[in-house]
């Protein structure tokens, strides 16, 4: 039966957090092209309205708000694929990293992410077979300039999800991370000059948001059932081999 289906997307419902960001928006676009019913979460109502045509539902919600998230998750329908691409980049030199900034980044990128997934699992909202994809960053694997809190939060979440991958091994839910290097998104524009941005290091040029979305589709295919606990590094061959 699955012989013909292995190149099709798993299930039909996808929940995407941080859908208003550059990467999130592209994932919504690509997934809607393959007939997925999408629930898009984000903060800005105006930006969510732009996504209305492509989504089954959009919801303005702050992922850091514990009680709001708890109530929201209790009332949603079951989903098949979960894509976590919310987060703040927070590139700042070390001498400007105070405790409040550190808290903010860790809270956004690490604690809220894990809390959200745990809420979903607690109320049994992820179907089997299911897919969880976390959008991490190459800075979680290598030192990049001025990314101390960001790297800590992304690396923390990434390894946490490897633990989760192991927990969910026999439940037919795969957990993977995608680690892009320098991608052209609005988040990057303000941060050029801070991290992995020497374009000459990139044999295939800078990445596009589409590349991240396509990697998400790949991990959500029926045939990717045996890929779990993986970090897929997207860098065009630039970063990891230096």
């Amino acid at each position, binding site marked *: 039966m699955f012989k013909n289906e292995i190149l099709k997307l798993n299930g039909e419902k996808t929940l995407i957090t941080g859908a208003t960001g550059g990467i999130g928006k592209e994932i919504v676009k690509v997934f809607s092209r393959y007939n997925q019913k999408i629930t898009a979460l984000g903060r800005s109502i105006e930006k969510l309205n732009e996504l209305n045509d492509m989504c089954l539902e959009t919801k303005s919600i702050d992922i850091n708000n514990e009680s709001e998230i708890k109530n929201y998750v209790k009332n949603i329908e079951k989903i098949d694929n979960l894509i976590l691409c919310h987060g703040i980049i927070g590139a700042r030199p070390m001498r400007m990293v105070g405790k409040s900034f550190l808290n903010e980044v860790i809270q956004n990128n690490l604690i809220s992410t894990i809390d959200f997934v745990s809420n979903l699992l607690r109320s049994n909202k992820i179907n089997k077979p299911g897919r969880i994809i976390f959008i991490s960053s190459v800075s979680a694997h290598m030192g990049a300039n001025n990314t101390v809190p960001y790297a800590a939060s992304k690396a923390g979440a990434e390894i946490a999800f490897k633990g989760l991958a192991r927990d969910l091994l026999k439940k037919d839910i795969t957990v993977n991370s995608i680690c892009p290097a320098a991608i052209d998104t609005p988040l990057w524009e303000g941060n050029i000059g801070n991290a992995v941005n020497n374009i000459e290091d990139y044999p295939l040029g800078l990445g596009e948001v589409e590349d991240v979305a396509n990697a998400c589709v790949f991990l959500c295919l029926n045939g990717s059932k045996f890929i779990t606990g993986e970090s897929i590094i997207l860098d065009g061959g630039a970063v990891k*081999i230096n």
Partner: protein
Amino acid sequence: MNFFDDLKNKKILVVGASQGIGKQVCIQLNKLGSKIYALARNKQNLKNLSEQIDAKLLECDINIEKQVVSIANEIDPIDGICFIAGFVKLLPPKFLMKKTIEPQFTTNIISPLSFLGEFLRKKKINDKASIIFTSAAARMNHPPCSVPYASAKMGLIGASKALVKDLSFSNKMRFNVVSFDYVETEMIKNMKVNDKDIVSVSPVEHTATPYIFLLSSRSKWINGQIIAADAGRMLSKTRYV
């Protein structure tokens, strides 16, 4: 809408196409409408394959240089190569000898690399091509008695990363490695699978997915990487990157 529609009419060479993983890759590529060049040693197996799919058959042993040269002379320039041919023989450390190590090194690393070299010399690989090697145990957790196999397969990871430096800047080629755990094929029929962590031996049908993805331009920014489809069995070990 088909996610892999760009693979239509692409010329893909599959080395080790007649059985197991290679056969699955051919079957999926055939469905997507690629032009397949199926290369294998066994004539009968190739014939059986051609009954199922539409492919150009190339009978060749990649360990024999003369045959590789003649294939490289005849073939049209191609857009992608999957190296899937492999050979494993379990060998306790006491039996490590030149004559027992060499066959596994030849098939698993020396032949694929010299094959690639021959194709590059003859300019038979198009720019932006995707080259995929098949490794094993990308998370460095090797089964016992697999010294020659493990070292040869790990060598492919280094080779792909070095090739990125040579050919990605100039010719925009991509080199990646796919690695598996135990897959239901003829090759592991005689191996004992005995591991508590293992979810199940992966059915061979699923193994085609990473190849198809890496061959297609959907993965155009993935280069020099390893994709491990091992059902998380080797999760606890650090990945070799």
